[in-house]
């Protein structure tokens, strides 16, 4: 599966557009990490727990998006975008969406 956030993929031709695919997730860390974060807010520095939260959310959202693309018989997703929304404190909604396409390797002449 070729996934990009550009509309085209260099070296490939889009032969079929399968349509919009999407995946979302709302995740939170356990209360202990929230308490640790509030202490970290006194001394500054990276909130590793929340960075992890974003990484996990992003992976899950992308996974769900790719599962949809697979079901449509696509071999790539182009123009992928991420948006987030604030649902409640200590949680993050991550929404990934893109266009499922069928890509074919381009010949050197059409490159």
């Amino acid at each position, binding site marked *: 599966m070729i996934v990009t956030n550009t509309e085209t993929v260099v070296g490939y031709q889009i032969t079929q557009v399968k349509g919009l695919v999407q995946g979302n997730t709302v995740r939170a860390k356990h209360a202990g990490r929230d308490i640790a*974060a509030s202490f970290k807010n006194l001394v500054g520095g990276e909130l590793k727990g929340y960075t992890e939260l*974003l990484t996990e959310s992003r992976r899950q959202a992308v996974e769900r998006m790719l599962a949809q693309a697979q079901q449509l018989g696509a071999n790539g997703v182009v123009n992928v975008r991420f948006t987030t929304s604030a649902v409640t404190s200590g949680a993050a909604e991550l929404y990934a969406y893109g266009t499922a396409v069928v890509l074919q390797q381009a010949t050197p002449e059409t490159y």
Partner: protein
Amino acid sequence: MEYIEHIVDFGILVVLLALGLLAGGYAERKHLRSLARREAANGDFFISQLKSFPGAVPGMTAPSIIVGEVVIASDYLKTFLSGLRKIFGGELRSYNSLLGRARREALQRLVERARAEGYNALCNVRLESVDIAGNTKARRMPMAAIVASATAYHRGTVAV
């Protein structure tokens, strides 16, 4: 006996401010040093915000999306000072630098991840901020959260 309570309250405030000044300042300086070092080391890595693939070379592995996340906390001193600033209005400089650091860090993570996968260029870089602290007023944890995404590809050494 009531004045003792006030002294204790004031003492706690002073301790927290000192903690913010020392620990927060140390964390910030350390981060800025790390950023300067990594930005210098990754200076040869080509980054653009174009949707095309400038200078792409054929016959290499397919382009791939790369995502980088980072969340950085404010410290007590910054939060306190910005609280004062909000009374008078104007630029909240301490938060400015916080967001700037988060964006620079997210970009460096993109570059490092792209490099690890064998790519030498990034295009269509997008930086987006996230609200983890939430829109509830009860919790006040100022932090900068950034999700950066880009497409990594192979670029020829000859400038195009």
